[in-house]
C-alpha cells in the first residue's frame, strides 16, 4: 500500500491504496464518487474520463500512484452547489444525454475541449469528443449541446 495525496474537486484527499489500483476504482470505491463509469476498462469508451491537472484522461488506465500530488476534477465537481454548469444545462436542454452512462465523461471532454477552443468548429468538436463513445445519440444532439455551451461562454 502507498499513501497518496491529491485534490478532488477542490478537496484534499490522502489515501492508503495499492499503488497500481486503477484511479477509476479509487474514485468509485474509496471516495464514493460514482459519476465516472466503467464502460470497457481499456481506455476505448471514455465513460470513466476525468480531468487530471486539466488533461482529459481515462481513469481506468491511470494507476493511483500517478495522481499523487495532482488536481482532479470529476463530474461531481462540475456543478456548483447543485447549480448546473452551462455545459450541463445545454446537454440537458439539447438532448445531449439519453441513457446518461456516457454523459459524465462526455461533459468533462466538452469542458476540456472548450478550454482549448472556446468557439470550436464542428470538426474540432468531432475530434475532441472522439475518445468518448455514445451508443444512444448518434452524437448530433451532443454536437449541438457543445455548440450551445460555447455560445453561452461555458468555460
Amino acid at each position, binding site marked *: 500500500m502507498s499513501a497518496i495525496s491529491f485534490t478532488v474537486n477542490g478537496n484534499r484527499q490522502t489515501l492508503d491504496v495499492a499503488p497500481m489500483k486503477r484511479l477509476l476504482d479509487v474514485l468509485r470505491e474509496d471516495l464514493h464518487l460514482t459519476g465516472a*463509469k*466503467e464502460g470497457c476498462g*481499456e481506455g*476505448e469508451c471514455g465513460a470513466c474520463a476525468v480531468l487530471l491537472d486539466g488533461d482529459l484522461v481515462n481513469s481506468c488506465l491511470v494507476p493511483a500512484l500517478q495522481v499523487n500530488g495532482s488536481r482532479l476534477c470529476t463530474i*461531481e465537481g462540475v456543478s456548483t452547489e447543485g447549480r448546473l454548469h452551462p455545459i450541463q444545462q445545454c446537454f440537458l436542454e439539447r438532448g445531449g444525454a439519453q441513457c446518461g452512462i456516457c454523459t459524465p465523461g462526455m461533459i468533462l471532454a466538452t469542458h476540456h475541449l472548450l478550454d482549448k477552443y472556446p468557439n470550436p468548429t464542428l470538426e474540432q468538436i468531432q475530434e475532441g469528443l472522439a*475518445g468518448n463513445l455514445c*451508443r444512444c445519440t448518434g452524437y448530433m444532439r451532443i454536437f449541438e449541446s457543445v455548440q450551445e455551451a460555447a455560445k453561452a461562454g461555458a468555460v
Partner: protein
Amino acid sequence: MSQRKPILGASPLRKEGRAKVLGAAQYIDDLSLPGMWFGATVRSSIARGRIRSITFSPEIDWSQFAIVRASDIPGENTIVHLTKDHPCLAADAVNHPEEPILLLAHPDKTALIAAVRGVSIDYDELPGVFTIEESEAAVENNDIERIIWPGSDQGGTANCFKQYLMYSGDARETEDGLAAAFETADYIVEGEYHTGAQEQLYIENNGVIAECNKDAEGNVTDVCVRGSMQCPYYLVHALTLVFNLPEDKCRVIQVETGGAFGGKEDFPSVIGSHAALLAMKCSHPVKITYDRAEDMAATTKRHPSRTRHRTAVSKEGKLLGGSIDVAIDGGAYATLSPVVLSRATIHAPGPYQWPHIRVRAKAMATNIPPHGAFRGFGAPQSLFGLERHMDKIARVIGLTPEEFRRRNFLATGDCTATGQPLVEPVDMQHLLTRALEESGYHEKLARFAEENKHSSIKRGVGFASFMHGTGFTGSGERRLNSLVYLDVLEDGRPQILVSSTEFGQGTNTILSQVAAQTLNLPYDDIVVAQPDTSVVPNSGPTVASRTAMIVGKLVERAALQMLTMLRDDVKLPEDYSPAEFKAAALAYRAKHGSLRSSVRYEPPAKIFWDDDLYRGDAYPGYAWAVYVAEVAVDLNTYMATCTRFDALQEVGMVMHPVLAKGQIEGGVAQGIGYALYEKCMWKDGRMMNNQMTNYIMPTSADLPPIHVHFEEVPSIHGPGGAKGIGELPMDGPAPAILNAIENATGVAFNTIPLLPEDIFERFTSFTTPSHGGSEDIDPLTDIDTEVESPEVNA
C-alpha cells in the same frame, strides 16, 4: 381556466435528465447493499460437448466461496422465453462457447478472478455447427452428429427453431399465381443478401444485485433482483420457474439503465437468475456485473441472416410475383428467435404491392451464444435484402431506383402482404419526393457521375424505402393485456405506474407529457414511479416500439378516467386550475383512502390476426420512411464512408421533437455501424473481437451530418396522434448506404458489414487475373445476383 400550452409536441426537459448530467444518476454498479458479495460465472470453453468432470484447484480455499451448480436450482433449470430449451446452468451438456456452467460468489470481487480460473472442466467434445448453411446441411444429410437441437414439444424441428410460410392470399391460389407470374414475366431477378451479427454495445454492461430470503428450514421464500433491464416482468417470470415461487414472491426493480437496444430484453433473465441463485447459496446480497469482454462474448447479438429473392417483373416495371426466403442464425437455444423471425417475415415484402408473394422463413440452430433482441428485431435483416434487391431489379429492367419503386408502392386503401388493409393514410410517393428533395439527391446523382470520372474517390447516393410495424405482432398486444395505473400521491401530484422502463429513449418524459396534457397540469407536476414489480402493474415489455403508442395511449385513457372519477365523485369542475385539481384529488383520497385510475389494453375494433395462416392485421400501425445516404468510396484505401444522411419518416405526430430527433439519429448511427464498421469475428462459435478496441462502433469523428425530417400525419392509435419510433431508424441505413456504394462504384455489394478489406478484395479480383479477372464491373454480372430475362439470355 385556460387550456395550457400543449406539452405534447413541445420538448420539455428529460425527466431524469438533471441527475444524468450531474453524474448523480445511480446505475446498478453504483449501488451497494449491506453485506453484499460479488458473483462470477464459470463458462464453457468449448462450443459443444458433454461435461465429463469439474475439478477445483487445491490452491484455493473453496470454503470461502459460494458455489452454485445446476443441481442447486430449487425449481426448473430453465431460462424461459418461448420454449424451455435454454438451461439456466448447463448440467450435462454444453451447446455454445461461454455457456454458464457454475456460479461463484465471494465477499471480495478480486478473489473471483483466480477462482474462475481455478475451476477446470473436462469435456467429451462433439462436432459443432457454426453457420446457417452447416445447420441446414446437417438436416438435409440427416447427419445425426450435427443435429444440435432436437426440436421441442413447444415447436421447432431438428436444428430449426421455427419456420413460417406466409402467402399474400390463399396458399394454393398464391402458388398458382406465382407459377403463372414466373411463366409470363418479362424479367426474373434473383439475389442473395447477407447480414452479420451486431453487438448492441450499450455502454453500461449487464449487471444486477439479487437478494434472497429463506424460512427456518432453509427454503427460499422470496427473491428480489434489481438491475439494468428493459422488461422487469420477463425476469419475474424467469425467477418463478427457477425458484418455483409465485409471482408475488419474485420482486424485480429496474434501476437507471445505461443503454439497452434490445440487449437487455431477454438477457437479464439469465444474469438475474444467476445472481439470485448465488444469493440463495451464500445468504448475502450478490452483485454480478460483467466486464466488457464477458458481456460481448457471452450475451446476445443481432441474428445474422441470409435472404434470397426471386422476383417476376414486367417490362413496365410492375412487380408480378415474388418468392422470398429468409433464414436467420438463432444460436444455440430458441430464446426470442421465433418472434425475431416473425418480424423479419412480415417486413420482408416491404412497402410494395405484390400481386402474389410467398415468404418462407426459418430460424436455424448453431453452436453460437443465442442471438437475441436488437432494435429492429428481424426487420433490418429482411429489409436490407429487399431494398438492395429493389435497386437490382430497377437496373435490370432499365428504370431508375426511384421510378421502379414509384410503380409499386403501397398506398392508402391497399392491402399489405398479410392482407392488412391500410386504413390510415400512407403516402410513400410524397415521402420519396420529399426525401429526395431534402437530400439534394437528383443534383448529386448528376454531379457525382461527372466528378467520379476524374477522381479516385467515387461518390454516390442511394436510398431505401421501408416501414416498421409498431407494437407487438398480430395478436401479441391482446395477449399482453397490458395494465397501467395512474395514482395521486399524498402531496396531490399524479404518479404514473408502469413497467415500461427508461433506458435513454425517453419513456419517463413522453409518458409524463401524455399525462400532463390529458390532465391539463404542468409537466413538472407528473411523477413516474420506479419500475418495481411490487408496485407497478405489468404494462408489458419495453420493446417493439410499443411504449409511446400502446402504453402512451393507456396513460392517456387512465388520465381521462381519473378526470371522470374526480368529476363524478368530488365535483372537479369542467374547467379547473392545477390547484383545483389538487384539491379535488386530495378530497377523493381523503374520502376513499387513495386515488387510482387503472386501465387495461383494449384491442382496436376489427383487428384480426390468424397465427396459423399468418394473415391479417400484423400491426396496429406502421411508421413509414425513406432514407437517403450519400457516400464516398476511396479507391486508394478502399474505405467507404457515409458523408451525409437524410432520414425522412412519417411516425404520426411527434411527441417530443428533441427526443424524437435523438432517437432517429441514434438509430441511424447504429445503422451506419451495421453497414460499414461493426463486424463480429467468429471462431468455432466464439466471438474473437469481444473488445471495444477491435469491434468498431462509430465515434463522433466517423459519422456524417444526419438530417432528420418528420412528416406529421396523426394516427388514431397513439396518444396525441403518435406512432412508434424506436426501431424504425435501424432498418433503412444499411440498404441505403450499399445502394449508394453501388451508385458510386458500379459494383453491387450484398453483404454487410462491408469493411475496406471486403471492398479491396472485390476490386482487386476484377484486375488480378489469378482471381479470375475476366469479371467485369458490370453490376448485372455481380457475384450474388442472377438475372434471367429474354433480352439478357438472347
